[in-house]
């Protein structure tokens, strides 16, 4: 049996998956962001220890120290962690899948205050206060 996946881009964008689809997309974008961020950061940590690559290493790390980048990466890292915990709980206790939508609401209730406080601190120190 074949697995059919011939869905065009416009058709995919019209798909109204709502809450669960949004978490799926954010989880995927977040996962990719973290892989790129952490990979380059490890590389930068290595380069910064060597005279031949110190400039490049410091340049890469300076991107991460920029508050605009932190606003972006913290959103995705925190969302990926909290959404990941929801996925783990629902997958390891499959009976709970019945409450998936409630779990997603709960997830946003946990995410928003933590991210809100972090956003406030990052932006305040980013604007020099």
């Amino acid at each position: 049996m074949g697995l059919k996946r011939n869905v065009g881009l416009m058709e995919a964008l019209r798909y109204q998956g709502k809450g669960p689809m949004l978490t799926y997309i954010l989880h995927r974008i977040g996962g990719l962001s973290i892989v790129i961020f952490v990979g380059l950061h490890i590389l930068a940590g290595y380069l910064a220890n060597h005279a031949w690559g110190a400039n490049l290493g410091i340049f890469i790390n300076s991107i991460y120290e920029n508050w605009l980048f932190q606003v972006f990466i913290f959103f995705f890292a925190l969302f990926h962690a909290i959404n990941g915990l929801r996925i783990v709980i629902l997958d390891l206790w499959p009976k709970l899948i019945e409450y998936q939508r409630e779990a997603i609401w709960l997830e946003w209730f946990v995410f928003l205050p933590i991210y809100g406080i972090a956003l406030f601190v990052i932006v305040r120190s980013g604007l020099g206060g």
Partner: protein
Amino acid sequence: MKTKQRPAPLGGFNFDYIMWLFTRLSALAMYLIVIVALTGALLMSARQNMSIADLMRWAFMPNPNHVASTNIPDIEVWKTIFWQVMAILMLFFAGAHGLHGLLNVVEDYISSRRIRMSLRALVLVIWVAISLIGITVIVTS
């Protein structure tokens, strides 16, 4: 957009299932390591000497480089074998979890078998390389 048909994955105890389980268990392991690092930092005088941002940086990866710019007076206790083992475990779980995720993205969006196979190999190479580089950074810092 036209894509080729592909056989559905098989059920049962195979590589895909093991990695599915690993992805979930490694997530729990990373939560555990973060809690251990956070508790350890608070026991090692982080409360008086570190900002919340520095504390989080340490919790995500317990590497002494992440403490270098704080007011911690004695960095020696942050450089022990225990923290190096924790850091290497974090690197292993995060690296395998993240690059297996990358592999999932490749499997989802690349329909050409040849490109998919090359990208699988590339992901494996990146994983081995980044693990070796990461271990070098951890043991030399």
